[in-house]
Every structure is written in structure tokens, then in C-alpha cells.
């Protein structure tokens, strides 16, 4: 999938959303039709993703310790250092999120044969806190 980032500025603004983006954007979102009316959800395991807290564990703390060990204080990090720490954290993090609580979205992603776009985990998050506010007053 092509992700054409904005060439100006610091915000990544893909012109076309990749599959991983779309899965996160549309799965479990939108109008829900009462289960008694619905014929199926196309056989996919579209379970409600439970908000599951990834509990910090000894493993987590040791990984953080390891990562902090590698931090070099001083001027801006080199790309290599960032990759090193990033890889360390990613591989560590991946180990911790296996198991039943991988969640429905991960099983759907498996079925669709896609990985995460930016390789971070699909942890469950706070179930959307809405904040109601008036439309902004400007100027």
C-alpha cells in the first residue's frame, strides 16, 4: 500500500489509508444493527474489543531498564540509536502482548493477512471518552 506522506511539515498525512489504518478506523465503529435483525457479520469474529489493561510486569520493567541503559544523554540522537532503542522496545513489547488478549482486531488482521502499519501493538485503549464542547470560537 502506498503511503504518501505530506512532504511539508511534521504531520504524517497519508493520501490513501492503508489496510491497517482502515481496520483500526472502521472495525467496531458505526451504526450497530440489533443482533436479532442482523443475519451475520460475514462470519468474522467481530467481537467487541474488551478494554484490557496490559499490566506492567517484571518483564516490562526490565525492558524499560534495558532501554534506558542504552540512552545516550547529550545532543540529538542519531538515527541508529533511535532504531536500536525502537527495535529493542518493539521486540520486547511484542513478546508481552501474545495470548488470548491479543483481541479481536488482531485475529481479524490475521485473517486479512496484514500486520500493523507502524508496528506498534494493537493494545486495547480506553473506550472512547467523549468530550462534548461547543464549536470553537475563532478570532
Amino acid at each position, binding site marked *: 500500500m502506498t503511503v504518501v506522506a505530506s512532504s511539508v511539515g511534521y504531520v504524517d498525512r497519508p493520501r490513501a*489509508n492503508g489496510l491497517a489504518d482502515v481496520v483500526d478506523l*472502521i472495525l467496531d465503529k458505526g*451504526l450497530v444493527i440489533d443482533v436479532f435483525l442482523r443475519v451475520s457479520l460475514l462470519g468474522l469474529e467481530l467481537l467487541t474489543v474488551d478494554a484490557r489493561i496490559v499490566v506492567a510486569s517484571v518483564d516490562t520493567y526490565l525492558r*524499560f*531498564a534495558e532501554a534506558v541503559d542504552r540512552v545516550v544523554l547529550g545532543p540529538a540522537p542519531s538515527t541508529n540509536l*533511535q532504531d536500536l532503542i525502537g527495535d529493542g522496545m518493539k521486540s520486547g513489547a511484542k513478546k508481552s502482548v501474545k495470548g488470548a488478549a491479543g483481541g479481536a482486531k488482531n485475529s481479524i488482521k490475521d485473517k*486479512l493477512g496484514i500486520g500493523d502499519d507502524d508496528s506498534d501493538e494493537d493494545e486495547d485503549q480506553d473506550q472512547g471518552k467523549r468530550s462534548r464542547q461547543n464549536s470553537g470560537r475563532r478570532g
Partner: protein
Amino acid sequence: MASDPRYVYGVVPAAAAIEPRAEGTCTPNVLRHRGIAALVGAIPERRRMREHLLSHASLLDRLAAAGPVLPVRFGTVLPSSEAVATDFLVPRHDAFLRGLETLADRAQFTIRARYQQAEILREVLTQDPRVSRLREQAAGAGEGPAGQAARLRMGELVAGAVAAKREADTSTLVTAVRPYAIDTVVRMSRSVDADRVADIACLVPRPEQDAFVAAMEALGARWHDRVRLRLLGPMAPYDFAEGLVGAAGLIATGGRG
């Protein structure tokens, strides 16, 4: 009479519903009832589910660019066209119509924030003297239990500090979008050891959209070393549809936008 299952994409105002052109694997038809219309189609082939997911989203996003649309949850199939009319459109007609009116000239954007891990760890190290003390201690103590204890304690402090940053940074993000979004859905990451900070879905009126994007750019620039922002949209209101037609009718229909 014959079984005629219909895949349901979404709901649009009846006046706006001309037969939309196909999108990928989606060939939507229009099913009208009074002021509203459902977009329905054939059930996609199971082996083309990946394509269908993309097509489904593309279709809804394309329609949303042209006018209000209430997305239906992906994968929803009703037993027949009659069921779509009788069991879906008829009983919820007024709520759908109100929801669509509320969506006029408004689009969803989703902003995703991710940490630059190295920089965040550097912040923690420099901001909490206990962490650097423990780092020295651990380095000096070697692999034995003393070193292990120091490492564990350091890791625990760092985990706590990162969690606190996540909350503070999510709050900063919400503050940044608030002037432009009439509604938001905030999903802050609860995981302690990944890069996600938060995803925030924002419903932004058209007149505010340029300023909203500029504000995200400004934040992205300020945060560049420590947080990367990814802005998706304008898109169909996936995060807001259910709230708009639910019993509470969460968004005020008055106000600007």
C-alpha cells in the same frame, strides 16, 4: 420472498441518494424511505474481504466528502431489502434524519500520536534524578541480585513516568483540537510499553478544517523530536455515528458549523 441478503453500508439523506458509482468490490444500491436512504449491496465474496474492507471505507469516505452519511458497522448483513426498509429504516427514520442533519458540513479526522521512544526515555532520565542514580547503581552492581533490584526499580520508575507523560500528552492533544472540534472521542493507550500515546477522533466543521490542520501541524512541529503525529481524514464519521442516533443524541444540534 426469496432470500436476498443485503450488505448495508450506511444511511444518507434520500435527496442526496443518487445511485452512487461502484467502489472497488462495492456496488451500492439505494433503498429509500421518506427522508432517508440506506446504501445496500451484494454480500462480498469471503476471499475478497481485504479488498472489501478498503472499498467499504473508500465508498463511505467518498460519500462523506459530498454530504452527510451515517456509516453502518462493517460486515452488517440484513436478510432482505424488505428487512432493511421495515426493520432498519422505518423504526429509526427520525433519529437517522436528525443525525444526518447534525453531520451537515462536518467531517471526521483522526489524529494519532506515537512516541519517539529514545527521546521519551531521554526525558525521563533527565527529569528524574532517581532514574539516573539507579542507572549508575545498576551498572556498578553487575548481574547479581543487587544489580537486578536496581534495574527492576529503575524500570518501574520509568514505566510510571512514561504512563504519566502519556496522560499529560493526551491532555495536550485534546486541548489542541478542542477549539476546532465540536465533538471528540479520545482513546488513550493503556499499554505500558508501546509507542502509542492516543488516537483522537474529531468531528470538525468545514469552516474550521484548515485551521484544525494548521494547529495539528504546529503541534507536530513542536513535538517533532518526541511525538509523531499522523492525521487521517477528512473521512466518514465512524466514531460518531452511533452516538448521533443513540437515545441520548449526544451532540448539540445548535451552535456554529
